[in-house]
């Protein structure tokens, strides 16, 4: 019966998610839910200092406490042959030298470089015992001066974090053409410039990081249960760092993962130390971060200080762009950060505009802060913020409307080769702008402004036209830029004898709704109900090949699935050819049924499946039995989702509080597989972007380098009551780079919204710039100044 009523999937339909049932009934399985036989628990001893030399570590009192199994220090790990954490991307400075990578031990060996850096690890029978004992480990520190500010860190008096890295400068990298940019500026009659800060964010996936590692001494193998976005990638890395014999000696399982946003993509010190510990004690070791630990050590996002200048002619046509960015790396270079601050960021600086000459320089700077890495947009929000703030200023300078300045500069013909590596594949930027303006009733704004003024409120409107790069690939391009990993995705489809389908993907779902979208697409192709399709992911014992999920890569994995579907259908055609005694070329397939046009005979997909397994109706020496297909899809290009966001704010000049009163977005994600899911992704991203613009900010004390915002009491998380309703529209230009025409949507909201909000705030106050977050205090002061000026 169920087979009759279960829905058929269809690309483009808002199918409800199949993964929901376990999650809404409390049956999700996250890493911390797992208890293994012989389980022990880990707790870290962390540095309270931002910069200090480690002296003696006295573990004797702790070791004698109840339940303590083992205590490990950084030296123990080095002595045990554990490798340091690598930078996963090789970046070359302008002078041709490679980036200088400070040695990052899983547990600090002689120096700590940020508050919360782990120094020792206690393993005990219970979590409470581990925690108690960790508090009784005595570490002698010789405190050193610490530095938080990047300009100070580059200066002559700054403390140097790493012995061989003068000026705390990891690299000075550039992209574009400095001479051409200079020439454009020389020609220009108008220019605008800005200095801005892209504030540091704490990722705050609601599920804290967690690992449960078990070691099998009898064959030297290990299983790691890890909350992670890329278990397959972690298998190779951890295998090498731990010195295991082969991939087959390490299984990594990432079950339900409670949010990632990039912060669960790096290889972390704590997880590596726990895996080492499991081998050292010969029992499973589990660690789940407490939220304070998450604040202190989950790789943070953003933290740029940028100077940028835009050259124009008298009509506001953009001629050239120069950007100089200091990127805060934190105490160490986290796994992907060298990529994030360079190619993920600076390549997007032209935004949606045809700017002929561009030059950008990025300096990577070590400071005594938590390492930074990919977070919700990873470099692209930082780029969109720079160019979209400049576009706003350009409109002011030329004296034209915010929308008009953008119209004058949009890329109009595709493919469009930018001066910054990328080639935009497709788009309709002006159409998208118009859609957004309609949605926002842009025409009616001045009336709303006047009406607000009558209520004593300052109302402003801000636009942002973003473009980003998704579905990272091809592998060869990435390797040529310094990449250390493959960028394709795999998909294996196994059709089982009774007709159900198992899909194995190397992509990882942690909220994106993959289970549903894969089932939708395969159901439609095979003509079988969605409930016959199961998606398997996140376990390297089941899936050997893949790249994980980040950078809105669903289109890449789904394209691999489409290829596998085609292979299955094609093999079915051959089987049906034998069954009907006709040429396979004369067999058609549609809606789950093979037909022979010539003879009018039909074979249902499920009948073909039975035949494939029974292997009685075709010669098995000519056609193999079974029905399994594996495909790899290496995208020929990135995809370039784009969109226009329109934000309206009202500011109360008495309190400085900014309220987002309307937020509308028109986005080009290419073809949309499941609008319900895509809208959900956009809501989340918009919320992040609005929160970055108005509330979120990781603040380190400038002297002590203590993180002042290390809990939900101090850090400005967005809450349900602080946000407006969102108005969304899709304006698709399908991409030619993958068979589904999809571009990706996971990060768009967080990329486009911060400049839209700040542009609206600036419009409301009639000012050139205010740094994020536009907190009530800052805004109140600006209002006071404005008052005085009047």
């Amino acid at each position, binding site marked *: 019966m169920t087979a009759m009523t279960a829905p058929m999937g269809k690309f483009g339909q808002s199918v409800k998610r199949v993964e929901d049932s376990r999650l809404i*009934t409390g049956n999700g399985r996250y890493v911390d839910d797992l208890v293994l036989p012989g389980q022990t628990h880990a707790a870290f001893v962390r540095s309270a200092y931002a910069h200090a030399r480690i002296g003696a570590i006295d573990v004797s009192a702790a070791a004698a406490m109840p339940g303590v199994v083992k205590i490990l220090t950084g030296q123990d790990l080095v002595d045990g042959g554990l490798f340091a954490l690598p930078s996963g991307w090789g970046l070359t400075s302008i002078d041709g030298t490679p980036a200088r990578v400070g040695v990052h031990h899983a547990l600090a060996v002689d120096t700590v470089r940020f508050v919360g850096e782990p120094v020792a690890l206690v393993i005990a029978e219970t979590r409470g015992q581990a925690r108690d004992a960790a508090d009784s480990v005595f570490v002698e520190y010789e405190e050193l001066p610490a530095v938080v500010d990047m300009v100070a860190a580059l200066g002559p008096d700054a403390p140097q974090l790493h012995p061989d890295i003068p000026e705390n400068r990891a690299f000075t990298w550039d992209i574009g053409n400095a001479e051409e940019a200079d020439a454009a500026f020389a020609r220009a009659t108008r220019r605008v410039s800005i200095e801005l800060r892209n504030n540091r964010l704490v990722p705050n*996936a*609601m599920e804290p990081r967690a690992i449960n590692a078990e070691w099998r001494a009898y064959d030297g193998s290990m299983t790691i249960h890890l909350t992670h976005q890329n278990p397959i990638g972690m298998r190779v890395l951890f295998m090498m760092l731990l010195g295991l014999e082969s991939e087959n000696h390490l299984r990594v399982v990432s079950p339900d993962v409670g949010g990632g946003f990039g912060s669960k993509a790096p290889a972390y010190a704590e997880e590596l130390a726990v895996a080492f510990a499991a081998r050292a004690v010969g029992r499973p070791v589990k660690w789940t971060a407490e*939220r304070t630990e998450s604040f202190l050590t989950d790789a943070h996002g953003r933290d740029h200080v940028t100077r940028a200048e835009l050259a124009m002619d008298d009509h506001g046509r953009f001629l050239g762009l120069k950007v100089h960015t200091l990127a805060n790396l934190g105490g160490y270079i986290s796994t992907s950060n060298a990529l994030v601050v360079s190619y993920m960021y600076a390549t997007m600086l032209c935004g949606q505009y045809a700017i002929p000459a561009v030059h950008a320089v990025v300096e990577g700077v070590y400071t005594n802060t938590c390492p930074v890495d990919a977070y919700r947009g990873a470099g692209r929000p930082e780029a969109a913020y720079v160019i979209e703030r400049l576009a706003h200023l350009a409109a002011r300078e030329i004296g034209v409307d915010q929308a008009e300045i953008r119209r004058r500069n949009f890329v109009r013909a595709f493919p469009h080769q930018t001066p910054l590596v990328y080639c935009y594949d497709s788009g309709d930027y002006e159409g998208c702008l118009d859609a957004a303006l309609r949605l926002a009733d842009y025409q009616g704004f001045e009336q709303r402004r006047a009406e607000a003024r009558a209520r004593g409120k300052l109302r402003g409107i801000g636009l942002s036209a973003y473009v980003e790069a998704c579905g990272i690939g091809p592998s060869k391009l990435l390797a040529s830029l310094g990449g250390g990993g493959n960028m394709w995705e795999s998909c294996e489809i196994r059709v089982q004898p009774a007709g159900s389908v198992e899909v194995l993907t190397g992509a990882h779902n942690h909220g994106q709704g993959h289970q549903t979208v894969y089932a939708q697409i395969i159901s439609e192709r095979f003509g079988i109900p969605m409930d016959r399709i199961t998606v398997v992911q996140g376990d390297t014992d089941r899936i050997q090949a893949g790249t994980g999920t980040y950078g809105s890569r669903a289109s890449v994995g789904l394209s691999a699935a489409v290829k596998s579907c085609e292979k299955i259908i094609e093999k079915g055609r051959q089987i049906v050819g034998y069954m009907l005694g006709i040429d396979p070329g004369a067999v058609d397939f549609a809606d789950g049924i093979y037909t022979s046009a010539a003879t009018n005979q039909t074979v249902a997909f499920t009948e073909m499946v039975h035949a494939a397994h029974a292997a009685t109706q075709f010669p098995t020496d000519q056609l193999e039995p079974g029905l399994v297909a594996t495909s790899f899809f290496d995208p020929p290009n990135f995809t370039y989702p784009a969109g226009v966001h329109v934000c309206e704010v009202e500011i109360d000049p008495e309190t400085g509080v900014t309220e987002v009163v309307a937020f509308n977005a028109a986005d080009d994600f290419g073809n949309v597989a499941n609008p319900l899911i895509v809208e959900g992704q956009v809501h989340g991203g918009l919320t992040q972007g609005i929160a970055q613009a108005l509330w979120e900010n990781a603040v380190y004390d400038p002297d002590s380098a203590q993180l002042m915002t290390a809990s*939900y*009491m101090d850090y400005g998380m*967005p809450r*349900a009551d602080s946000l407006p309703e969102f108005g969304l529209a899709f304006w698709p230009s399908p991409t030619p780079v993958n068979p589904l025409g999809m571009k990706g949507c996971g990060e768009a909201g967080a990329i486009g919204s911060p400049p839209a909000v700040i542009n609206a705030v600036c419009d409301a106050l009639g000012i050139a710039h205010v740094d994020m977050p536009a907190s009530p205090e800052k805004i109140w002061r600006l209002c006071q100044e404005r008052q005085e000026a009047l």
Partner: protein
Amino acid sequence: MTDMTLTVNGREHVVTVEDRTLLVHLLRDQLRLTGAHVGCDTSQCGACTVHVDGKAVKSCTMLAVQAQGCEILTIEGLAQGRELHPMQAAFHEHHGLQCGFCTPGMIMMALDIARRHPSPDAATVRAELEGNLCRCTGYHNIVKAVVAGAQRMGEPA
């Protein structure tokens, strides 16, 4: 160590707990009901929300021993087999979850909202959800789900 008795999802349990054990850890570690999640250490995320004697409580704010003799309802106690509680169904219908980590706490809080406001408007729901954090959804669809779920609960079955 203290011996105590409590009823969870209609079943009585006699347990021995360390005095410092929080209710959420009793549920998760000893009773192995892992639907309530721990998302913070300052009682602000709401991922651990359960009902104690009919009211939503963040189970990390309470010692287990304080629940002596209490009736606890957790997310695991809502559905009858495959039949979802109307509030669970509303979260599914309106795509009120992505990673699902905040979801059990959201649903338990939503039931409390529905109890106090039989047909709440979106603004009420937003204000009431102030103590439950979600990093994925931007709350938009959660609010829709709670409004719809509360509505459905009020309708005759």
